């Protein structure tokens, strides 16, 4: 897997959330939509999202990173993935 630019990461995650979590309803979602507070991600969809991210970006998300500040919106998720990619590069 090549390193994606942040805009690409965001687009990939957004597409996943729209198709797999929101079943195609993109009306509500932007980079700062509160995914947990609004009940878009619950425990089951969050775990599925993490499994998707791990496979799609060839990363291993540490349990300590599965916390609200990394998953509360699309921007936070994108930053988390970028930080993993930066670590694997160095």
């Amino acid at each position: 897997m090549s390193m994606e630019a942040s805009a690409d990461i965001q687009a990939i995650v957004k597409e996943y959330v729209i198709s797999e979590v929101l079943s195609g309803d993109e009306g509500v979602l932007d980079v700062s939509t509160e995914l947990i507070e609004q009940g878009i991600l619950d425990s089951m969809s969050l775990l599925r999202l993490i499994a998707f991210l791990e496979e799609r970006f060839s990363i291993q998300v540490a349990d300590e990173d599965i916390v609200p500040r990394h998953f509360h919106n699309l921007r936070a998720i994108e930053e988390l993935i970028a930080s993993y990619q930066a670590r694997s590069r160095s």
Partner: protein
Amino acid sequence: MAFLLHQLLSESADRHPDRVAVEDDRGRLTYAELESLSSQIAHYLRNRGVEPGDRVGLFLRKSIYGVAALFGIQKAGAAYVPLDPQAPPLRAAYILQNCGVRVLVTEQEKLQRLPAEFLTQGALTGLLLVDSEAAANLEMAGTLPAATLAEIRSSQPIRHPAVPITDDYLAYILYTSGSTGEPKGVMISHLNSLTFVNWAYDTFHVVSSDRVSNHAPFHFDLSVFDIFCTIKAGGTLSLVPDLIHPFPVELARWISEKRLTIWYSVPSALIQLVERGHLERHDYRALRLVLFAGEVFPIKYVRRLVETLPHPEYYNLYGPTETNVCTYYKLKPEDLNSARTEPVPIGVACENQEVVVLNERLEPVPKGNEGELYVRSATVAKGYWGRLDDTAKVVVPNPLNRHFSSVLYRTGDIVRQLPSGEYQYVGRKDKMVKSRGYRIELGEIEATLYAHPAVREAAVIAVPDDQVGARLKAYVVADSNLARSELEKFCRDHLPRYMMPESMEFRSSLPRTSNGKVDIHALEKGSVAT
């Protein structure tokens, strides 16, 4: 002696007015505060025309005010009808209309999602908004009279209204998946519920120093133990904050920081704590009791949980919503033997309940043989709201008693009695499955798919999953112009999220058995192969 659930609150408020009754991440209410606020809510509901026997809906995120509201509803003589806060608006509106709720307790964001016609049609006579400061914000309520919690607090009397009801009145209605395509409301009376609450209180020795988790949503009957046993004991009910719920590491820390003494949840929540919560990092010495219910808890995870936290007592509680808990099993050290692969038993009947295993002819099966589990108890629900036929299929005359009339509840669960006298769950007689403790009628999902005009055939299977119970797969034969996204949206508008198929496969035909039925086994085999 308390014979109504809300009397448990009044009694505890007399004994421990200053103890904390309920807390969440935004606040707390003492027993005195919970008692007076719930009485004020009851007065408001009565002013809005709520009569004994009426239904009042709860459509809101979990909070200490939701707890005050459900006691207030009961004090007004009504039954509370808790909705899944994440329910699709159409489904929420269906439930509220189905049982004719008179008043809806809600919050602005939820209210805005409901179809406008719901607010102007039907039995609704008022709204109570828990999250608004002033009625000025309430234009979306249209012509319905509405009040905020702040207004009720400043205007209504705090004394407990005297509403003369008996323990035969409904305390709450819990809607579950219905095989014919629409959710059905399980009606629970005060007697039904108190029979369970009193048993649990005695069995688990709940006391005023206990700090009890509330993990389950209020529309799920695990919450009945959390709320009413804790309040009966004068203990503290600690609501798991929505923001922590999905995050195992945070939840593990929260349980420790809150010094919880009793935890009750579905196994899938405990599995996530074991898998990703790093329980070994925190201090759980306060935790004395772990209860789980709602689905099978795979033994390998039980073993890891007990190895990490050896100190608490563990119980497997079993029972459908229609009886709450009817059997229970205390985990024994030998259950953790590494050679064991079968799940822990569901145990023996709760005190003051009787369970029997019958065959198709309603005759008792010999000990050790498989049969369907039937329950005789005052916990057995009054039936399904407005569905006498469906009720008569499961609440049946007791064939073992010919001297006076009594009934048995037919669980649909196949069990087998072990030599020890304990019962072992074997499986379901019908197409109901469990996912994260939620009951799911595959027939309801199929009926929803069929409701789409372009769907010609549909079948849904459940692929067993160790961590969540089941994963749902739908197979659809549809007109060629039906887009997957359209069918997914249609389902999302009608089904709660836990009933959404994880995958949908479009096919030109479905496999059939020799007698023409959809061959579910062939689909199941195919799904394992892929």
